[in-house]
């Protein structure tokens, strides 16, 4: 027996901010959960199981936070699972939740992911020096900047393409009331004029540090019948790879290419750029837009920057990318992947508000994590999948 159909009928998120000092971690999660449940027309008592995700425990210094959160998440008496795949965790958490429905184990699954970066310092947490080693690590930016440089060299991209992405996403965020950054008047020139942090990555090409949460309600076919606009799941894929294998492609990782190929096959998509109406791609540093466009098959290898430069990834372009403002505009790390997945669902439900792509019928949600070693992605559609 194949997979059971499953659909997203509730999407909720917090207003992402640098510091949500007015709420606890539990309160932050409940804001997103309560909005997702209201969207789904359900209460916590209607939920069969809960799947929670967040990035490394060191970020808030709470080991296994799912234990103390269980009661606030309404998990008493229900299965509660926690998923952990670094930055991609929001995506893989949603996939684990959807698989519980697709497997026929549960009918109504609530999934939530969060990060409260204000309680700690992620840059510190990602750069703790180890004995015997060279202390040259400098957070996520320091990790990814050399690979961005490799991409620029490999593709011969003009150096302003990253700034095009940043200006686009920051302007898209102005249409998203939940986005953390609402920086009016961001232009390619203003991005290029911002401080170089991890050369070749500038300040304005970097994601913010956010407090926030995202929650989804994922249900079976019978339950989805009550929803006016379910987002049907057409495909889900996760892939991992070794971080330190010799000659590993750090710009276009094998696991990413394999995941994309499997995803399009599962979703019955032969030409992603023609068949996907909106993409929410995990872009924490601006250059990852052209990099992932190539890896995902929206552009040929070396041509991703051309797609970006042409304006095709703008909200009115051929393949709108990150209409929500993306990770560049809100980065509650653990939730960032689920926000991509949730925003994709909002697009095909026609519920994305001011940043809605007209008539979007199929959308991609994407996340990656670790040293580009974890990948999670899904395709959602306004129509039930045919097979």
């Amino acid at each position, binding site marked *: 027996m194949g997979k059971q159909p499953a659909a997203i009928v509730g999407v909720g998120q917090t207003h992402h901010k640098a510091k*949500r*000092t*007015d*709420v*606890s*971690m*539990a*309160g932050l999660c*409940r804001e997103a959960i309560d909005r997702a449940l209201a969207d789904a027309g359900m*209460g*916590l008592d209607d939920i069969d199981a809960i799947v929670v995700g967040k990035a490394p425990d060191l970020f*808030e*210094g709470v080991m296994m936070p799912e234990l103390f959160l269980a*009661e606030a998440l*309404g998990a*008493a008496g229900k299965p509660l699972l926690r998923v952990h795949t670094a930055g991609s965790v929001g995506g893989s958490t949603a996939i684990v939740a959807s698989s519980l429905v697709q497997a026929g184990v549960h009918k109504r699954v609530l999934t939530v992911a969060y990060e*409260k970066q*204000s*309680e*700690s*310092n992620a*840059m*510190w*947490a990602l*750069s*703790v*020096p*180890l*004995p*015997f*080693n*060279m*202390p*040259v*690590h*400098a*957070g996520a*930016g*320091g990790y990814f*900047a*050399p690979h*961005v*440089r*490799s991409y620029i*060299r*490999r593709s011969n991209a003009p150096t302003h393409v990253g700034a095009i992405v940043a200006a686009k996403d920051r302007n898209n965020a102005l249409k998203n009331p939940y986005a953390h950054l609402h920086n009016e008047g961001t232009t390619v020139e203003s991005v290029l004029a911002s*401080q*170089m*942090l*991890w*050369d*070749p*990555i500038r300040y304005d090409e970097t994601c913010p540090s956010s407090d926030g949460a995202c929650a989804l309600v994922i249900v079976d076919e019978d339950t989805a019948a009550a929803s006016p606009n379910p987002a049907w799941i057409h495909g889900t894929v996760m892939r991992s790879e*070794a971080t*330190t*294998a*010799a*000659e590993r*492609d*750090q710009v276009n990782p094998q696991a990413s290419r394999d995941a994309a190929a499997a995803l399009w096959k599962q979703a019955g998509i032969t030409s992603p750029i023609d068949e996907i109406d909106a993409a929410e791609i995990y872009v924490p540093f601006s250059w990852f837009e052209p990099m992932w466009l190539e890896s995902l098959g929206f552009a040929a290898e070396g041509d991703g920057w051309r797609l970006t430069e042409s304006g095709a990834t703008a909200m009115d372009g051929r393949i709108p990318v990150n209409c929500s403002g993306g990770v560049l505009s809100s980065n509650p790390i653990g939730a960032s992947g689920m926000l991509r997945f949730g925003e994709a669902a909002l697009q095909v439900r026609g519920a994305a508000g001011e940043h809605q792509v007209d008539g979007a019928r199929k959308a991609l949600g994407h996340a990656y994590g670790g040293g580009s070693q974890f990948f999670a992605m899904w395709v959602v559609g306004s129509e039930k999948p045919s097979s």
Partner: protein
Amino acid sequence: MARTLSAPVTVAFDYTRSTGPVLGRFLTGLRDGVLVAGRTSEGEVVVPPLEFDPVTHQATSDFVEVAPVGTVTSWTWVPEPVKGQPLDRPFAFALVTLDGATRPLLHAVDVSSPEEMSTGMRVRVRWAEERQGAITDIAAFEPDPGGDGVATTAPGTDEPVTGVVTPVALDYNYAASPEESAFYRGLNEGRIVGQRCPACQKVYIPPRSACPADGTPTAEEVELSQTGTVTTFCIVNVPFLGQKITPPYVSAYVLLDGADIAVLHLILGIPAEEVRMGMRVKAVWKPREEWAFSLENIDHFAPTGEPDADYDTYKQHL
């Protein structure tokens, strides 16, 4: 000589917790010398209050004050207190149901021996000398009569408590694998020793014990050249907490001649803006008397002055 090297590591951070309105109310009460409980939809009176009701799932909004006096419902003796516990001498951890509450609070009871403890005994709060809006504002409970349980000092402020600082410190021993230990011992002799995978023939530095690509155990040691090629790099301009090197500095992947994976290191001896992909570099060691079992024995890599490596020779390492 031990087979493996190890060294102590401390990971410590003062986390800044946002309490939210419910726990904030409880902590504000402690600072003010009163105990605030929450009433659930089923009439239970719980200290500290639950953030969300277990039945209706609504945020707790019904608060009541309970007495600083209560009854021990269960307890355990702590003969050897450890750092961070409420008292630095033997004490009891006890569940205390305060008068007016229906659920117990976990805290310390300050008595000198387990013979002085019993289920059903009456205990009172002994307040800390200075209260600041934390659970430690209750220094401990003590047998009743042991005072009236009424806080004697007034709080210094009437601002509500919205956050607490939670210092967390992990002290542990970082142990290098036998293969890594051999690598670090080599560095202590001025040598750079990698390992070759017997299956795919790739040379790893540092050695990984098993090939990350195929999982094959590695054993054959390979001494690597002290020169190599910068495959890619970034210039770190951003200062951050815990940083060991003052920015700006060039953090680069150096592919040593004979190795199949690049190692991240520091480039000096050339202005940062002149560092290039393909630049040929050599290891510059610290003075021998400063050597230890560490990659830090190589102070940095500096240009050799050779022509840059052809892109085709290192492009598969990007």
